[in-house]
């Protein structure tokens, strides 16, 4: 933080739209959210589009010599990110049902997501 910055709390919403492997967007989005939580911002984390593949249970990145993103996502709550959402329509389009998801996900519809965006100071969409 720069010296002239006053401690301030912003509501920051992250919309993670990329699949967990094959590119690093999901990891970048998570890193930004964790940093925001460390600096005590009010964080919403939304899995949207292909991003919902990040929250499937039973991931194992070892076959592609990659860290398992699902394991990292399970630590969100430890960092104080408790508002974690998955877009209902994105799940339905991909035939993913709630029991297949990691614990702690709240399934919401697009109206709720629109309200979260509306009430946010900053939105990251990656």
């Amino acid at each position, binding site marked *: *933080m*720069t010296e002239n910055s006053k401690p301030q709390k912003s509501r*920051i919403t992250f919309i993670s739209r990329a699949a967990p492997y094959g590119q690093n*967007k999901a990891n970048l989005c998570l890193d*930004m959210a964790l*940093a925001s939580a460390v600096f005590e*911002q009010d964080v919403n984390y939304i899995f949207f589009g292909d991003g919902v593949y990040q929250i499937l249970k039973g991931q194992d990145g070892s076959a592609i010599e990659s860290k398992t993103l699902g394991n990292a996502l399970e630590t969100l709550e430890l960092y104080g990110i408790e508002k974690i959402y998955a877009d209902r329509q994105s799940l339905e389009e991909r035939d993913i049902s709630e029991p297949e998801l990691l614990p702690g996900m709240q399934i919401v519809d697009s109206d709720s997501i629109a309200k979260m965006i509306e009430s946010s100071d*900053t939105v990251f969409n*990656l």
Partner: protein
Amino acid sequence: MKFSIVIYAAPYSSEAASSALRFARSVIDQGHELYRLFFFGDGVHNASQLTVVAQDENNLQQQWNDLIEEHSIDSVICVSSALRRGVLNQTEADRHDLGTASAYTSSEVAGLGQLVDAAIHSDRLVNFG
């Protein structure tokens, strides 16, 4: 209005880094404040000074550097993204015993806290990539 710009995209692979540069110029030309540039992920390649391009092409990295220096812009490259991509300032090159600094000195190498700070203190935070 106070803007910050986040660049995720490497130069040349897509239009995004070039669009970000033109957007940054417009922000300044139109009299707004550019609070910070933050280069993240592949975006850190925009701060590499060890580049040579064909004579009839734009050197994006040099153009970023010129803009940052001309307007004394606060510009940050993410340290963890930069280290694994070989975009190092002298301090990091010395720390890791790698000899050569490859980053322009016009950008600071720092952590994601600088991005969070930019999100908090900017009226608009615009992402490219």
